[in-house]
C-alpha cells in the first residue's frame, strides 16, 4: 500500500532556510540601498533642491524613482541563486541519494524547496516595499501604488524565473550545466531569432540588415518585462527644461504579468512532473531527461551549423563574389558537415563516451541533416515569404526609404507607392541579387526600405544597387530600380522629407555659408563665414529667407538634394559638388519638427528625441548647378567672388591634395 505524502515538510523547510537565508539577507540589503535608502537620500533636501525649484512634487519624485528601478534583471539572478542553493543536493551523488533516502517524498522535497525559495526571494521585496511605503508616506508623497506595482512586477518575474530555474535544474545532473541551461532557456527565443537573422543576413537577398530592428517579444521575458511592464512616469517641462508643466503616470503591462504568472505555474508543474519521474542515477549526467537528449543535440547542431554554414559562405564571398545560388549551395553543404560534427560532439558530451557512432545516433544525425537541408532550401526558395515580404498597407505605421537621405512616409498614398516600388523591384530579382557578379566594376551603393508596423515590429530590407546611369547596365535593371529614384527625387517630396515638414511654414533663423581662403599671415587655408552681426535679427531672417527661396527654386529644378544609386554619398566623387559648406536652421514654433532621419533609424522614441523640437538644422550639399542658390548667396553677401566657390577637385588642386603642387605655401 502506498502511503499518502504531503506537500510540505517543516524540518526540510527549516533546513532549506538555514542554507539560503544569507542570500535573502544580501538581497534585502541591496534592495534597501536601491529603494528606501536611495529615495530618502534623494529627497533629503526636497524643499530647496533643484528639483523643488523646477516644481517637482513628492509624488513625481516617487514615480521617477520607481520608474527606473530594475525588475526582471535582479529577479533573474536571485531566482537561480536561491533555487540552485536549495536544490543543490540534486547535483551531488551522496547528497542526492541521502536526501531521497529520508522519509520524505519527492512531492514534499519539491514543493517545500519551492516554498522556502519563494520566502527567501520574495520576503525581501515585500519588506523593502513596506519600508519604502512608510518612508514615502512620511515624506508626504502620494501615489504609493507605484511601489506596490513595482513589487508585483518583481514578484511575478521572480516566480517566472524560478520556474525556468526549476525546469533547468531538473533537466541536467550537473549544477554548472543547469546554470548554463537556465540562461539558454531564458534567452532561447531571442537566440533562435538571432541565429535565423544572422543566417538570413548572410544568405538572403535584401536581408543584410536583418540583425537590426529586433523587437523583444513576450518569449524573452528578461527584455520584455523591462520594456513593456513597468511604472511609467512622464514629467513634462517647458521648452527650456526649467519648469515642470505637467505630469502623467501609468502602470503598463498588467495583462502580461497575468500571462507570466500562469506560465510560471505551468512550468512549475512541468518541472515537478520531470522531478517525480527523474531517475536519480542521472546525477552528474549532462542531460538527465531522456526526451531532452535528442532535442538538445539536434537543436544545437541545427542552430550552430546553420549560422556557421552561412558564415562559411560569407567568408568565401568576401574573397570572391558569389552568385546567389552558389552561396546557398556552399552554405548548405557546410551546414550539414558542421552540423554532423557538432551532433556527434554533443552526443559524446551526453553519453560521456567517445563510442557514439551507433545506428540510433546516425538516424538522429540524418534527421538533423534533413532538417538543415529543408530549412536552408526553404530560405532559398523563400517558402515562408521573408525575402518577398511586403507588409499589408493596413499594418504599416510608416514606410521609409534611405539612400543618401532618409525619407519616412506616413501618408497612406505614399505608403502604397513605396509598397508598389518595392514590389516592382523584387519582381526581377534574378539580376538584382547578383549585381556584384554581373556588374563587378560598376559604381554601386546600398539603399534601404523600412516598414514600421503598427504592432511595433520593423521590417528592414537593404539592397546593393548599381548606378542606373552606367552604360553597361541593362534596360531591365534600370526598369526595376529607376522608379525608386524618380520617386525620392520628386521636388515636393524632397522639400517635405529632406528639408522637413516645416519647410513652408517655418522661418530661417540661422544660415552659414563657408568659404576657404588663403591667409598669408598663418600660411594656411582658413574657414570664413559671414555672420552678419551688424544686422538685426529680423534683417537676418529676411536675408536668409531670400536665399532659402532660391534654394527651393533649385529644388524644383532638380539641382539639389538629388539622389542616385552610385557609390558616392553626396560630394566626394561628384565633379560638380562644392567643397563650401552650407547649412541653415528652420524654425516653426507652432509645428513640431518631424525628423525623417530619427524615425527611419528608430531613434524617435528615445528619451532625448521624444521631446518635441521646433527647429532643425539642415545641411545642404550644393553643386555648381545650383545657380539660383549661389546667386542669392552672392547677392546677399555670403561670399564675394566666384573664386570663393570651389569644387572638391578645385580645392584639392589648390591645396595639393590631388598630389600636385599647392598654389600657396603651407605653415608647417
Amino acid at each position, binding site marked *: 500500500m502506498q502511503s499518502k505524502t504531503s506537500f510540505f515538510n517543516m524540518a526540510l523547510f527549516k533546513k532549506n532556510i538555514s542554507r539560503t537565508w544569507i542570500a535573502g539577507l544580501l538581497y534585502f540589503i541591496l534592495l534597501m540601498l536601491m529603494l528606501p535608502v536611495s529615495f530618502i537620500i534623494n529627497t533629503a533636501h526636497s524643499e530647496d533642491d533643484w528639483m523643488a525649484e523646477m516644481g517637482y512634487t513628492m509624488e513625481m519624485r516617487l514615480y521617477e524613482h520607481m520608474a527606473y528601478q530594475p525588475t526582471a534583471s535582479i529577479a533573474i539572478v536571485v531566482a537561480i541563486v536561491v533555487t540552485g542553493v536549495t536544490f543543490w543536493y540534486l547535483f551531488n551523488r551522496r547528497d542526492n541519494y541521502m536526501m531521497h533516502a529520508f*522519509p*520524505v517524498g519527492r512531492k514534499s522535497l519539491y514543493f517545500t524547496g519551492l516554498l522556502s525559495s519563494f520566502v527567501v526571494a520574495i520576503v525581501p521585496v515585500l519588506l523593502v516595499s513596506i519600508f519604502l511605503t512608510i518612508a514615502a508616506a512620511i515624506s508626504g508623497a502620494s501615489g504609493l501604488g507605484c511601489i506596490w506595482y513595482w513589487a508585483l512586477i518583481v514578484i511575478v518575474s521572480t516566480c517566472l524565473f524560478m520556474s525556468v530555474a526549476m525546469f533547468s535544474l531538473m533537466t541536467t545532473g550537473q549544477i554548472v550545466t543547469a546554470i548554463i541551461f537556465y540562461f539558454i532557456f531564458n534567452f532561447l527565443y531571442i537566440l533562435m531569432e538571432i541565429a535565423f537573422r544572422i543566417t538570413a543576413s548572410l544568405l538572403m537577398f535584401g536581408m543584410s540588415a536583418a540583425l537590426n530592428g529586433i523587437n523583444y517579444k513576450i518569449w524573452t521575458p528578461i527584455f520584455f518585462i523591462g520594456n513593456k511592464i513597468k511604472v511609467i512616469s512622464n514629467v513634462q517641462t517647458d521648452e527650456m527644461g526649467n519648469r515642470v508643466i505637467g505630469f502623467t503616470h501609468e502602470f503598463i503591462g498588467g495583462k502580461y504579468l497575468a500571462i507570466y504568472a500562469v506560465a510560471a505555474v505551468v512550468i512549475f508543474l512541468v518541472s515537478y512532473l520531470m522531478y517525480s519521474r527523474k*531517475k*536519480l542515477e542521472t546525477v552528474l549526467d549532462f542531460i538527465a531527461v531522456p526526451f531532452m537528449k535528442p532535442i538538445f543535440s539536434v537543436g544545437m547542431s541545427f542552430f550552430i551549423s546553420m549560422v556557421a554554414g552561412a558564415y562559411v559562405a560569407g567568408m568565401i564571398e568576401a574573397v570572391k563574389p558569389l552568385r546567389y545560388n552558389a552561396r546557398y549551395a556552399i552554405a548548405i553543404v557546410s551546414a550539414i558537415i558542421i552540423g554532423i560534427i557538432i551532433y556527434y560532439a554533443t552526443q559524446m558530451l551526453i553519453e560521456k563516451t567517445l563510442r557514439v557512432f551507433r545506428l540510433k545516433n546516425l538516424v538522429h544525425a540524418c534527421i538533423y541533416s534533413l532538417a538543415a537541408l529543408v530549412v536552408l532550401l526553404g530560405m532559398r526558395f523563400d517558402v515562408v515569404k521573408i525575402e518577398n515580404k511586403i507588409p499589408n498597407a493596413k499594418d504599416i505605421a510608416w514606410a521609409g526609404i534611405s539612400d543618401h537621405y532618409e525619407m519616412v512616409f506616413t501618408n497612406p498614398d505614399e505608403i502604397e507607392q513605396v509598397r508598389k516600388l518595392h514590389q516592382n523591384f523584387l519582381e526581377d530579382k534574378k539580376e538584382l541579387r547578383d549585381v556584384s557578379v554581373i556588374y563587378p566594376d560598376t559604381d554601386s551603393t546600398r539603399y534601404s526600405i523600412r516598414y514600421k508596423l503598427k504592432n511595433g515590429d520593423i521590417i528592414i530590407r537593404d539592397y546593393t544597387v548599381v548606378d542606373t546611369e552606367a552604360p553597361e547596365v541593362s534596360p531591365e535593371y534600370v526598369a526595376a530600380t529607376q522608379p525608386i529614384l524618380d520617386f525620392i527625387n520628386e521636388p515636393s517630396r524632397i522639400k517635405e522629407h529632406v528639408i522637413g515638414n516645416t519647410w513652408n511654414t517655418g522661418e530661417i533663423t540661422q544660415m552659414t555659408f563657408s568659404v576657404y581662403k588663403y591667409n598669408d599671415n598663418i600660411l594656411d587655408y582658413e574657414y570664413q563665414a559671414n555672420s552678419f552681426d551688424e544686422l538685426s535679427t529680423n534683417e537676418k531672417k529676411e536675408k536668409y529667407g531670400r536665399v532659402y527661396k532660391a534654394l527651393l527654386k533649385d529644388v524644383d529644378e532638380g539641382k539639389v538634394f538629388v539622389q542616385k544609386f552610385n557609390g558616392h554619398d553626396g560630394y566626394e566623387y561628384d565633379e560638380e559638388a562644392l567643397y563650401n559648406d552650407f547649412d541653415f536652421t528652420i524654425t516653426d514654433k507652432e509645428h513640431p519638427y518631424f525628423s525623417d532621419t530619427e524615425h527611419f533609424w528608430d531613434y524617435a522614441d528615445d528619451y532625448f528625441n521624444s521631446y518635441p523640437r521646433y527647429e532643425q538644422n539642415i545641411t545642404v550639399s550644393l553643386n555648381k548647378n545650383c545657380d539660383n542658390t549661389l546667386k542669392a548667396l552672392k547677392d546677399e553677401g555670403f561670399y564675394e567672388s566666384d573664386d570663393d566657390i570651389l569644387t572638391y577637385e578645385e580645392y584639392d588642386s589648390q591645396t595639393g591634395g590631388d598630389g600636385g603642387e599647392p598654389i600657396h605655401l603651407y605653415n608647417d
Partner: protein
Amino acid sequence: MIEVNNVTKKFGDFVALDDLNMNVPKGAIYGLVGPNGAGKSTIIRHLCGVYKQDAGQVLIDGQSVYENEALKQRYTIIPDDIFYFTQANTLDMMKFYKNMYPRFDETLFKKIMDCFPAINPKKMVRTLSKGMQKQVAFMLSIAARPELMILDEPVDGLDPVMRRQIWSLIMSDVAENGLTVLVSSHNLRELEDVCDHVGIMNNGKILIERSLDELQTSITKVQIAFEGEMPALPPEIKVLKKITNGRVHTLIVKGEPRAAEHAIGQMNPLLMDILPLTLEEIFIYELGGENYAVKDIIF
C-alpha cells in the same frame, strides 16, 4: 521483513541487477556480501527508495518502498558516504532526524552520546573525522528507533574498540526490540561474528542465501590420506576444489559434513579430518565457480 522479487535494474546497456531475489526475515541480521560491482549498493539504493527498479518488486513489510514516506519513517540507512547538511552540528542533525522520524527518542540519543565522549555535539559534523561522522550516524540512526536498519560498509573507518561498541549497541537493539539489520560489507570475519543470515551476490544476482549455520554446513573441508593412489570418489560427492600435498589430499566438497564423512569413510582412508570452513572460505569457494577472481577480495 525485506522481500525483493525478480528485480532487474539496467544502467544503459549494463545490467546491474539481474532478476534478483532476496529475502530478509524479521529480526535477522543479514549480511550481504559480494565482490566489487556485484550490485550490493544498487540493491541497497532500491531498498532506500532512491532507485526505481525496471522490473520486479521491492517490498519492506509487504509495502512497496519507492516514494513511501510512511514506510521510510520505520527504517534508517547508514550509507558508506554519509550526508550531513553544511554547517549543521550533531544537535542540528538530531533536530532534523527528530522531525523526520516520529519514533525518534531524544533521551536515547543523549544516552548514546555519552558512549561517544570524543564527539563535540556543537561542532559542525562535516568537520569531524570520518570515523566520528560514522559514530554520529549510528547515534542518529539508533535513536530513530527503527524497525529495520540498512547499513552499507558500516564500520569502515572505525577503530576496533569503536566497532565493538557500535555492534554491541546494534545487537542489544536487535535483542530488545527485534530490530532487523541488513548489512553490506567486505569484512567477512566481522559479518561472521554478527550475522545470522548471509546472502552472497555476484553479477547482479544472489547466488546463495541462507542462515549462517546452514551455509557453514553446506560446504565441508576434508583432509584425507590413502595407502597408495587416491581411489575415485563416489558420484554423490561434489568436489569444489582439490589440493594434493604428497599423499595428503585436501578436498572442499559441497554438502553436509556428516554425509561427506560417511561417504569418504567407506573408502577406508588412512587419515580423515573434517574441518569447519570460515565464511571467508565459503565465499571464495562459492564464487570460485562463478569465475570470480579471488585476488580481488580484500579481507
